[in-house]
Every structure is written in structure tokens, then in C-alpha cells.
């Protein structure tokens, strides 16, 4: 091989090396672009919700009920109260079932029935919330012949159950085995061990899960459209149609009035603030692996 040939090879491999390096940088650049694409919408949403929502957060926004369209003033007191009642009721209905299921899965779930339940919970978490709304509509609303806050709460509870059940199982499984063994060594039966040793140890994690589930259902409108319907008036009666923040945002967003839009921004701000505060608090208490999902 002559010197000339060698340098030709040298040139070629230099070129190849440069091309490989360039491609590497190009892909890194693409990654940065993708990060920007993912983060910019979040900031835009938060920015607009703050900018257009803050002016709407007046005292009468919290204390008054909706007024006739076109009339200035009015608030969404009924929607705030309705949301609180239905979310609270959904937690009361859903959490016992979810915790029972989670306990079952972690204690007795190592069999075929357990795997089935686990699979059903996974799939249930992915069911469109609007079909849950229709299910509760035909289960409760059709049979009772009227919309009700109770039906809304049941729909929300069905969405809550898989979230809390999954977290409960995970948290119970994280409890160190030695604690359990110490309890057995003292002669405690299994149910006593689970209830007074394992469960209390896992409780902070389970409460975190409930908070996450709560913040998820607080923002759900689709399951409420055909169950609690919405209501122009203030009510605490769970057997009548009931208003909620998400459904009111939906109806105000599609309406033509500026005052409605202003209040819809303010309601969006309120909802997003509640959800983000819960999410941040959970994050601070619990580390990075648990997140809220709508």
C-alpha cells in the first residue's frame, strides 16, 4: 500500500467520522426540540389560565349563584358546592371498595382470581369516562327517572376505584416482611396483623393515592353530563340534579357571553390550582414515582 492510498483512506474515514458526529449532534438537537414541544403547551395553558382566570376570582364568584345570561355579576357557588359534595360522596363510596380490593390483591391475590381482578383493574383504569357516565345513566338515572347528584357520585366512584385499588396494593406490598413476621411471632392472626400492623404502615401511601384519585375525579366532566346533569340553582340535595365545576366550564365554554367565558377561565384556574397543589404536595411528601393523571 502506498502513502497516497493511505491518506485517501484517512480522508474518507475522517469524513465518515465527521458525518457520524454531525448526526449525533443533530439527534441531540431534535431531542431538545421535542422537549420544547412538550413543555411549551404546559406553560401556555398555565399562563392563559392564570392571565384570564385571575381577574374573575372575585368574592361574588365564590358566594353567588349563576345569574341570567347577559346580566353582569353572578358566581359559581352552586358548582363549587356541588363538586365538593359529589367528589366527597364518590370518595366515601369508592374508597372502601378500592381498599378492600387492594388488600385482597396483596394478601390473597396470588392465584387466578387475583390475576383476573388485577387485569380488570388495569383495563378499568383505561375505560373512557363517558361510557362510565352512560353506564350509570342506564343503571340509576333511567330506573329513577331523574338525574341526581348521587348518580354523579357513583360515576365518579367507578373512575376512582381502579386508581386507589392499584395504589393500595402497591403500598401494602412495600411494607417490609419483617414487620409482618414480628406480628405473627407474637401470635397475632393474619387479619389482626394486616389491620393493625401492615395497613397502618402503608396508610400514608394509601392516603396519597386517595388524594391523587380525588384530584383526578375533581376535573372529570364526561361522567357527570348524563348523571348529575348540572343545575342553575344551589342545592345540597343529592337526589336532585346537581351542578359541578367541570360541567359548568363545559357549558360556559360553548356559550356566547363574555361574562361566561371570564367565569369559565376563573373556574379552570380554580380546578387547575387545586389539582396542582395536591400533585405538588404528594410529590413533596412522596417522591417522584406517583403522578396525577386525568
Amino acid at each position: 500500500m502506498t502513502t497516497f492510498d493511505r491518506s485517501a483512506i484517512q480522508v474518507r474515514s475522517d469524513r465518515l467520522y465527521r458525518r457520524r458526529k454531525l448526526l449525533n449532534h443533530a439527534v441531540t438537537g431534535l431531542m431538545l426540540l421535542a422537549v420544547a414541544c412538550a413543555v411549551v403547551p404546559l406553560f401556555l395553558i398555565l399562563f392563559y389560565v392564570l392571565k384570564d382566570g385571575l381577574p374573575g376570582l372575585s368574592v361574588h364568584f365564590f358566594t353567588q349563584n349563576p345569574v341570567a345570561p347577559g346580566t353582569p355579576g353572578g358566581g359559581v357557588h352552586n358548582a363549587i358546592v356541588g363538586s365538593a359534595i359529589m367528589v366527597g360522596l364518590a370518595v366515601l363510596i369508592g374508597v372502601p371498595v378500592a381498599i378492600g380490593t387492594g388488600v385482597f390483591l396483596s394478601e390473597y391475590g396470588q392465584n387466578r382470581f387475583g390475576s383476573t381482578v388485577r387485569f380488570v383493574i388495569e383495563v378499568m383504569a383505561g375505560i373512557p369516562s363517558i361510557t362510565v357516565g352512560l353506564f350509570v345513566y342506564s343503571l340509576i338515572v333511567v330506573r329513577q327517572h331523574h338525574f341526581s347528584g348521587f348518580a354523579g357520585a357513583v360515576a365518579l366512584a367507578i373512575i376512582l376505584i381502579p386508581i386507589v385499588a392499584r395504589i393500595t396494593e402497591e403500598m401494602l406490598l412495600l411494607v417490609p416482611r419483617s414487620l409482618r413476621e414480628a406480628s405473627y411471632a407474637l401470635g397475632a392472626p393474619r387479619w389482626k396483623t394486616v389491620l393493625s400492623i401492615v395497613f397502618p404502615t402503608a396508610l400514608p401511601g394509601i392516603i396519597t393515592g386517595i388524594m391523587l384519585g380525588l384530584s383526578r375525579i375533581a376535573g372529570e366532566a364526561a361522567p357527570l353530563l348524563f348523571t348529575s346533569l348540572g343545575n342553575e340553582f344551589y342545592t345540597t340535595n343529592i337526589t336532585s340534579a346537581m351542578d359541578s365545576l367541570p360541567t359548568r366550564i363545559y357549558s360556559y365554554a360553548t356559550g356566547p357571553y363574555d361574562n361566561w367565558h371570564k367565569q369559565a377561565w376563573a373556574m379552570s384556574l380554580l380546578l387547575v390550582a387545586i389539582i396542582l397543589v395536591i400533585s405538588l404536595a404528594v410529590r413533596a411528601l412522596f417522591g417522584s414515582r406517583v403522578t396525577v393523571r386525568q
Partner: protein
Amino acid sequence: MAVTTSGRPERAALDLKNRLKPGDWTFIGVSAGSALVVILLIIGLFYELANQAWASIQQTGIGFLYGTTWDPAHAVFGAWPFILGTLLTSVFALIFATAIAVLVALFLVEVSPAWLSRPVSYLVELLAAIPSVVYGFWGIFVMGVFIRDHLGPVIVKTLGWIPFFNGTPLITGLFSGCAILTIMILPTVMAVSRDVISAVPRSQREGILALGATRWEMIRLAVLPYARAGVLGAAILGLARAVGETLAVTLVIGNSVNIPHDIFAPAYTMASLIANQFPEATGLQQSALIEIALVLLVITFAINAVARLLVWRVTKGQRVVVQE
């Protein structure tokens, strides 16, 4: 999970029998009862919807799925425009969201230093915390206006020669629906992709780096082939979310029962049709809408099942706590 592990199996069985106190039986009963409630709920869900949809199923038969006319006034119910609308928006969102999400996940795992990847990861996941209806509202007043005035005209100008990509950009329409869904499923796909990519063994990376590969070559040759099934699962999970997404899409997709002829035309997805028409529907139309919900339920059930199996296969042996 018997706690006493004595040598012979028959002895263990005897121990178990003696150990189970009445309290234990109650405990098993209550917890298994809750699990049973969950199973009954999902069966009830299918049963109730099928029951309510029965009138429509009998009336329209299989033609319901490919009929192109939806005319409640004349009792003609064809769901194809909405199935198509769901398909177009979800697949569009799936492609864009997966491309962006995988790049973000690669950035977080392979490139970014730890102090940066945590906050970025958290910010992207926050996208999942914003309620659907807020997305929709923001989509009309901010994103839709941006699409009509800025993004839409650019797309028509550069890609207008492709059929389906011309048209008049409006605030609401098929494209707005696609865009909002892309943003909404991004965190799901990103979080799962990140987990499966970080599950790729370190030795895999070190081996190819030792052979002189650049970072991109390492990702292409060692990381992505290993994580492929999991990333596919992540994308399918995102797809399930996009298919079932209701209110955000309802607010921005423009609501038209006709088959869209270009990417900016108004359309309907299955979920948004239900949200919009169900409150005023009666009789056969109500039944037809519930049949659409049933179709939607079956589709998302199947998609979710496939995605779960794929993700489980890849992250097996790893404790992935509370991840979609």
C-alpha cells in the same frame, strides 16, 4: 403466601387450617367481596350498555358500523363518520405524540443530567393532570385561534398540494382535535417510554460504547431494539387514551356528522358525538348512541389489554409503581 413453612406440605395445610380464625374468614370475605364488586362492575358495564343498545343493534344490524349517514330525524344511523373521525384524530395524535415522547424519554434517560431530567420529567407529566374540559376550553380560545391565524395557513401553503391537506383553517375542526389529543396523550407515552428505556440494561449500552459508537448509534443499535416492544406498548396506551378522550375533543373538533373532506373540516369522534347528542336524544337515537359507546368500550378494552401485556412483558421483574 402461607407464613408457616414447615417441611412437609400436608403439615403446612394442617397449620393453615388451624391458624385461620373466624376473624380471618371475615377478613377474607370482606376483601374478596370488594374484589368481586370490581368484577361485577365491569360485567355490569358491558351488560347495561349492550342491553340499552339492543334496540339499535336489532334495527340497524352490522350496517351500523359502515353506514355513512347519521340522520336521527329519519331514523338512519350509520356510525362510520364517527369511527373514521376517531381513527383519524387518534392515529394522527399517536404518531406525533409518540415521536415527541420517545425523543423526550431518550433525552431524559440518555442525555440529560439528573438535576435536569427530574424537573423536565415532572413538567411533562403535569400535562396529564390538567382536566380534559380545561384543555378543550383553552383549545378553543388559544390554540384554535393560533391554528386559524398562524399554523393553519403555513400548513396549507407548504403541504396543500397533498390531497386532504388543503382547506380553510378554522378555530375548530379535525386538525384542532388532532393537536389537542397530541398534547394530551404525550405524558402517558412519555412516562411509559421513559420507564422501559431506563429498564434497558447498562451493559447493553457499555458494550456498544466500548466498540466506539456515538451516542446516537448506541441509542439506535443498543437501546431502541431492546425497548421496542415496551415503547410500542406505551404508544398503544396513548392510543387508548386518545380514543376515549371526550370533552377536550368535543369542544374543538367542530361537530359535523359528515365525513370530513380535508384536515381542517369539522368532524365528530365517537365520544364527542355521544357527549353532544345524548342529552337531547330519545328512543332509537339514544339506543344508537349507546351502541356507539359499546363499540368504543370494546375498542378501548382491546387496545388496553394489548398495551398492558406488552408493557408487562418488558418491565417484568421491575416494580413500576403507579404508572399509566
